[in-house]
């Protein structure tokens, strides 16, 4: 069967194989016994040939170079010097080591690039929804200006001021976010409310202001819409169109089993 072949997948080339052999010997590249290395390399090539592998031309070129180095090593030392000549760049041993050292550096660099590559897979860029300034238009869309609302609040404040001083102790019991929450609940129960109704229970100046700020915030967040059916008529507050509600229904589908132990946080 000729279509079944075994392939050296792991070695990228002869340099890769040489590095593998050096690593197996657990020696520094500069200290490697080139003769021994040449022998091992050629053994591998032999096995590859026996396995009927496609031996890339580069492997054969390297094998020849190693054979050359090896054969030179067999010569007496004085003759070696003669062959080497003056140009150190032509020393085939040095040339090979230089190549190995350089290749090793890039192989390591490739490993670090791979780490970066994997790291990037786990990096999520913040992709926010674009800021929506159309919410600023919520008031304008309703034909009301913020001044209309302020006007209305002013009237309510005057009314509160006319009441005898009372329950000043409770002045600070409301925060804007409390009010927001209670307004959200209220509007869920009754989809349409008179503006003045929202302040009916207000007992202090602070509470009126807090309520007003809460309404403004909810209008800005498009949770509420202010409408006025006729100019200078009573302002009414309704639930805004549902598409931009920040809290979608699935929130309630979560079923937290009570009493489970918490993870260490």
């Amino acid at each position, binding site marked *: 069967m000729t279509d*079944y072949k075994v392939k*050296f997948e*792991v070695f990228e080339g002869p340099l890769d194989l040489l590095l593998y052999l050096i690593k197996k010997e657990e020696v520094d590249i500069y200290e490697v016994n080139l003769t021994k290395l040449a022998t091992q390399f050629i053994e591998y090539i032999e096995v590859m040939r*026996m396995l009927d592998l496609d*031996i890339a031309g580069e492997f054969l070129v390297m*094998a020849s170079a190693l*054979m050359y180095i090896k054969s030179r090593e067999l010569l007496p030392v004085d003759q070696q010097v003669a062959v080497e000549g003056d140009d150190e760049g032509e020393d085939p041993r040095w040339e090979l080591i230089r190549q190995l050292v350089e290749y090793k550096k890039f192989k390591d660099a490739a490993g670090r690039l791979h780490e*970066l590559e994997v790291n990037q897979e786990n*990096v999520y860029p913040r992709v926010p929804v674009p800021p929506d300034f159309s919410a600023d238009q919520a008031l304008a869309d309703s034909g009301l200006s913020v001044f209309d609302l302020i006007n209305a609040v002013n009237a309510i404040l005057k009314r509160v001021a006319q009441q005898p001083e009372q329950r000043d102790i409770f002045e600070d019991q409301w925060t804007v976010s409390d009010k927001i929450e209670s307004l959200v609940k209220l509007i869920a129960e009754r989809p349409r409310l008179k503006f003045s109704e929202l302040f009916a229970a207000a007992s202090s100046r602070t509470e009126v202001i807090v309520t007003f700020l809460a309404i403004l915030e909810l209008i800005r967040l498009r949770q509420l819409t202010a409408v006025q059916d006729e100019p200078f008529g009573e302002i009414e507050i309704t639930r805004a169109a549902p598409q931009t509600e920040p809290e979608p229904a699935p929130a309630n589908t979560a079923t937290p089993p009570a009493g489970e132990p918490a993870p260490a946080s």
Partner: protein
Amino acid sequence: MELKFVLESILFSAQQAMTSRQLREILVTAAEQSEDSTIKAFKKTPVDNIEAALEELGREHEQAQRSYRLTCVAGAWQFISQPDYAPWLKALVGHKSRPPRLSQPGLETLAIIAYRQPITRTEIEQVRGVSVDGVMQTLLERGLIEATGRAEVVGRPMNYGTTNAFLEYFGLKNLDDLPEAEELRRMPVEKPATLLTVDPGLATAPPELLAQAESPQSVDPALAEQIGLPIVAEDAPKEPNS
């Protein structure tokens, strides 16, 4: 109003990474649309100031050690999550679509180009010791490298270099941001003072044996395994390094 916070707010709301020049344009546009002197004051902010402010912001967010930070990739700034939180973000937004990982030959070739650019194909092959035709093709197609001109040597071969897409793929600010950039760039391997004297040994395989490429019938893979060769079964491979 501090410049760095203005820039931060823009990056915080931006849909994509932004360069200092793009940020500058936002400052100009905002100034033109506004009557407010505070906003107008940023109109003529030099790009240098913007870059200094961005660097400062980057350091601040690094030091804050939160679950996100501000990074600069290929000159463009963006808020990103720390990799540790990937499992939850995966649960939140689903898997990121990303091209397949690069092969080992791809990474090696890319590393050589990245550190030694501009570089010709022949020079790359000298370092790797094998042909890089197929690999180069893949890298070019993925836009990670590009031809940058012709080398002034015989035959005037093409020079290659990495692209911005390369920086983005690996999350690098610029080429100086490559790991061990100084060491690997253009640094010739130093020849040691003395080469170890190698003991003469015996040749096991005469050269002529290698020259004649006469191979026997296919051999049991078990043999290869026996001598410790990593093997992969495959049908009719033409290119070992694809």
